[in-house]
């Protein structure tokens, strides 16, 4: 691999407090110190930002088991297009990633066909059933960076407590999809004016809030890190904010669709607006933005959830939850920078150092000697998202046809340009 000189770009590296126009040199797959070697390839980044490769800690790659929806190859290419150099894949595959063999398979596939780094998350419980602990220690040895029953939520509070206490022994954070099953029941959209108007069953915000509160108590008792995935409600944000003030080991993420859209979008009955947790009210959306701005919400993640057209193009009640998001995530998040909700540095932190810190990944910085995971962002680029051209195998995006501003134009993983806009 030839050395690479990224020239004239505005380097923004929050971990090292770098925020200036300078060149960046990559050699041997690492960020290099000193001048570029004579034989280096040159990538011109004039007028663009050069930042650490982004990390998305919430992605469904569907392989093994549902490679018709997405594969490790297509999902990681999608990530590369979106500016992500590292992704954490969720364990709700078939078979479930609740054993070392499945983790080994995912890692081996990712090494062979993946465009970006793949860090698997293992299951908290066997087959995600919420009944018995999966072998957390073996999963750790096989290479998981966290455990989660994502898509499912452990309902048994004692089991959740033990899972967190046990994971602490292995230095693994526990990621939780916060949903009380009795309260959410068969809800398909936010409970409120719109669910009543549309005659769709409601999934109340309270079903999330009560589990966020549970997780705060568990994190406090276990004195260990619990991460609340895809916060969607104002009350959840307030609970996490208050807990953080007390020093509880709790973190949280938000998804672009939750801070961009509201429940009203469901009024056409288009199942591309059906996600779990559901889109909520304008008040909830505003609370997420506030939580992102004041640091209550540590990370932004996509919850990239591919589904086939024939699965999504059905009655709203029947459709599976979820949307693809890796390709639109950065632009939808940059909208917060354009609207001055966040500074660019704050945003890049939520995509780099913050997830790296909570997952204990040696990623997310441009320090000399670090893995050369770097992306180039054109902040002002205006473009239209055309889902028919997506690298994903699926097409379930509510953002098809949206005018967006800001885009990754080159993605470098371990010193290699894995994707570059033509």
């Amino acid at each position, binding site marked *: 691999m030839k050395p690479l000189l990224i020239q004239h770009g505005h380097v923004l590296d929050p971990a090292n407090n770098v925020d200036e126009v300078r060149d960046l040199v990559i050699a041997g797959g690492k960020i290099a110190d000193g001048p570029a070697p004579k034989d280096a390839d040159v990538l011109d980044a004039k007028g663009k930002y050069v930042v650490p490769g982004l990390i998305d800690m919430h992605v469904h790659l569907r392989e093994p088991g549902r490679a018709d929806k997405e594969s490790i190859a297509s999902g990681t290419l999608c990530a590369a297009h979106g500016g992500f150099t590292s992704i954490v894949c969720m364990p709700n595959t078939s078979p479930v990633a609740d054993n070392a063999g499945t983790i080994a398979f995912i890692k081996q596939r990712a090494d062979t066909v993946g465009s970006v780094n793949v860090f698997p998350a293992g299951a908290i419980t066997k087959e995600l059933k919420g009944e018995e602990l999966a072998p957390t220690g073996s999963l750790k040895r096989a290479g998981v960076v966290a455990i989660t029953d994502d898509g499912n939520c452990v309902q048994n509070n004692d089991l959740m407590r033990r899972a967190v206490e046990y994971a602490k022994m292995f230095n693994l954070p526990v990621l939780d999809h916060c949903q009380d099953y009795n309260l959410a029941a068969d809800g398909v959209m936010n409970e409120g*004016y719109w669910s*009543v*108007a*549309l*005659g*769709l*069953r409601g999934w109340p915000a309270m079903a999330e809030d009560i589990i966020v509160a549970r997780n705060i108590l568990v994190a406090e008792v276990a004195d260990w890190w619990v991460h609340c995935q895809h916060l969607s409600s104002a009350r959840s944000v307030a609970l996490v904010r208050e807990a953080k003030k007390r020093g509880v080991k709790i973190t949280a993420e938000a998804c672009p669709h939750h801070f961009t859209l509201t429940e009203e979008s469901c009024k056409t009955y288009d199942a591309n607006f059906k996600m779990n947790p559901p889109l909520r009210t304008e008040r909830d959306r505003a609370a997420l933005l506030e939580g992102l701005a004041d640091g209550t919400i540590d990370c932004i993640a996509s919850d990239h959830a591919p589904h086939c057209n*024939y699965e999504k193009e*059905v009655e709203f009640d*029947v459709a599976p939850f979820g949307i693809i998001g890796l390709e639109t995530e950065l632009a939808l998040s940059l909208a917060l920078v354009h609207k001055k909700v966040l500074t660019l540095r704050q945003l890049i932190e939520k995509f780099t150092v913050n997830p790296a810190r909570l997952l204990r990944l040696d990623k997310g910085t441009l320090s000399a000697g670090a893995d050369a995971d770097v992306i180039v962002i054109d902040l002002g680029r205006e473009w239209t998202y055309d889902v028919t051209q997506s690298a994903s195998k699926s097409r379930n995006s509510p953002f098809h046809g949206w005018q967006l501003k800001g885009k990754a134009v080159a993605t470098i993983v371990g010193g290699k340009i894995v994707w570059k806009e033509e």
Partner: protein
Amino acid sequence: MKKTKFIWQRKDLLGIEELSADEVVHILDTAAAFKQVGERNIKKVPSLRGKTLINLFIEPSTRTRTSFELAAKRLSADVVNITATASSLVKGETLKDTALNLQALHADIIVIRHGAAGAPHFLAKRVKASIVNAGDGSHEHPTQALLDAFTIREKKGRIEGLNVTILGDILYSRVARSNIWLLTKLGAKVTLAGPSTLVPHVFEQFGCRVTHDIEEAIRDADVINLLRIQHERQRKTMFPSIGEYTAMFGLNKERFARTKPDALIMHPGPINRGVEIDSDVADCGRSVILEQVTNGLAVRMAVLYLCAGGQPA
């Protein structure tokens, strides 16, 4: 009665929500003309001759399906019924594929009843045929609200200014929603009453009054519309028992005696005698339950006629 003068533009009838008050009145006026057809010796007119109507019922229904079928036959349309058990839907075909198949058969009108809210809207986006919503989940049942309004107007001479109380399971009821949209558009004062779990205050945002006091709900009502408790749509946690419902909210003889002497008693059917309505009350002179059924035919004839492109003579 004021006649509205405008051209009907809609291909589909998906719900009451999107209709203007003028459109509602136009349907009611058209239905009044068709009602006379049903009273003749020869009950058939040629309005839809050569048109194919498909009754696509993906949820059990006898009365609504029969009413649509008769309405279509009286308009001389060719009618085919497809019900959930008879169709290939049980074999795993998607609604989209069913719709495309019906399109390939050159259906002109598809009347759809479906357990999922929004199913008629889903069809309307994908096929050329007119789509008439015959009830979608807990969302809307527009022809029921139209026939209720037709009956009220016929009996009371107006809708504007009347106190209409809808009593029962509002949360899961498509009949309630369509009635709320229609009655508020036409200027009635709507009161919703029933158990607090089934009549949440969010309905106040739809321009209704919400109360859990049945005595107060029925006292000043000009019209009392009773809804069935829909076990099949409810979660078990919603209220204690049918017996408790009857005790707290059933329209028994004592409560009936305290209603206004000219208050109409309505029910979309099927009624559960002794549950939400006392048997004698159901049969009393102020009960218009069977007239609702008769008017349903006229209203459905009007809707089919208008959606298939008919214009008032």
